[in-house]
């Protein structure tokens, strides 16, 4: 059984799984079982410098730009329904390839057209983020968010970040109003 973190906790990935080179960040949620418009959740990744901002728009990985400029981060594509077990969307990161001036990798999920559809994270069941060792398929750490959200339409699920020469993961669970646009603004992407 993999380690499970609560909101705010962090874990050293390098110590927990010393052989970790390539990680798969899996994001999941349950498709709605009730009637009404489907939830379309989109995962986006921001590569952040020390300043907490992206270095350029090439550091924003999302459904229309599935790979970072540096090539270290690859988004495997949009899942429109949340159907199926396991990860609904995933992002692969080659840790060794991440540019040295990238301090943090923020993994976020936003609900597409949330305001128009009157949807929020509180209506999404069993959302989680997990880090998997891509080479072994072993889950290193997981964070279940279901109690930590309510009316948010955009959330930072977690961060993978450098700390004293190692990689760590932090369960963030921080929500924002205003969807992906607000998230981009926060991280210095001009839309």
């Amino acid at each position, binding site marked *: 059984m993999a380690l499970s973190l609560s909101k705010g906790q962090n874990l050293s990935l390098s110590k927990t799984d010393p052989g970790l080179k390539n990680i798969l960040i899996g994001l999941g949620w349950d498709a709605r079982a009730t*009637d009404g418009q489907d939830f379309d959740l989109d995962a986006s990744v921001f590569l952040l410098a020390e300043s907490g901002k992206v270095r350029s728009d090439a550091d924003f990985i999302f459904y229309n730009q599935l790979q970072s400029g540096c090539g270290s981060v690859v988004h495997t594509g949009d899942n429109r329904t949340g159907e199926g077990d396991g990860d609904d969307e995933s992002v692969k990161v080659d840790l060794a390839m991440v540019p040295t001036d990238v301090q943090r990798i923020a993994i976020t999920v936003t609900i597409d057209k949330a305001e128009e559809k009157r949807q929020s994270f*509180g209506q999404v069941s069993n959302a989680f983020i997990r880090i998997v060792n891509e080479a072994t398929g072993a889950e290193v750490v997981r964070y279940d968010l279901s109690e930590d959200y309510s*009316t948010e339409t955009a959330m930072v699920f977690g961060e993978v970040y450098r700390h004293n020469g190692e990689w760590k993961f932090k369960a963030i669970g921080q929500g924002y109003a205003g969807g992906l646009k607000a998230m981009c603004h926060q991280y210095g992407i001009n839309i």
Partner: protein
Amino acid sequence: MTVLSPGANAPLPSGDLTVLIRHGMIPGAEIDVSTFLVTGTGKVRSDADMCFYGQPSVAGGAVALAGASGGETRFTVAPSRIPAGVERVIFTATIHENRGTFGQLSEMEVQVGVLTGKIPCSGRTETALILAEVYRRNGSWKIRVVGQGFNGGLAALATHLGVEIAEPAPTPAPSPSPAPAPAAPPSTVNLSKVSLTKQNSTVNLQKDDGRFGKIRVNLNWNQKAQKTGLFSFGSSNIDLDLGAFVEMRNGNRSVVQALGNAFGGFGTPPFVKLLGDDRTGAVTDGEWLEINGDKWADIDRILIYAFIYEGVPNWQQTDGVVKIIVPGQPEVEVRMNEFGDKRGMCAVASLENSNGQVRVSREVTFHKGHKEMDSSYGWGFRWTAGSK
């Protein structure tokens, strides 16, 4: 007061809870509020985990329907008594026979103590909604406001929650012969309601062992103050009283009603008991009679009536309805909707012992008083004027 939007959750205070659902009313449609006790898989363990008008107390009383009227439904929840294995108590609203949508309401509210969940409804197409859920989290209980549902009404909701629903009663065809109630398979919850009308005035309720459990009879009516005229300053509350004539197999006859303090008895003859008389308006779910259906073999016939103790009879505004709830049987409903009569007494329904079955017939005949009703039904009591 803390307002919760759909999706929001909050911890609940410890101890027993009262959950008040303000669902309002939809003209021409009836809103039923039910709760479901579900496990971690989101399904009920059995049909005994559904708390609704036909099964008002579940899990040994841990969750109970405490009353419904005037667009509000109240439940009591005792979290400490909820069985292990039940992870969530789900509160739902459904529109009977999908005769409307929740879009006809502006919003619904779920209130527990200082927490109020507000569910916007305009534009909705659903006819069944999950309003909120009370759930376990790390050893304590929380509430989440949900506001999601189904266009397919109760049937779709019940399937989602793992409840098997008995087929609804066939649409009654106009026929002079009594239509027997469909016998529900024992493993399913019977959600059908039988409305007795002029055309379809009788239903037979059958049980193999002849023991019907606690038969509950409810009289409810529009208790709102009514103005007596366009320029009138006065207004009066309507006080309707529920009562019954009971005749035993051995020929003994009794009257059960608040007038004269004849409240009857449940464990002792006449096995019919009136539960208090509310004249304060504090009880919003009307008046209740209980019939000891396990003693049905000793009972020959019961005539259920309503009378206006004070005020001018206006049966149209009163809009009274009597519901007869027999455990495991379709709920039987009789509306006092023969309007325009100024007489203050209405014989609503009769229950007859017909070879061990309970034969329920709609009466809805109006009379000046007890004596006149007595003579038209051939009971033969002796009457004197009385007061409460």
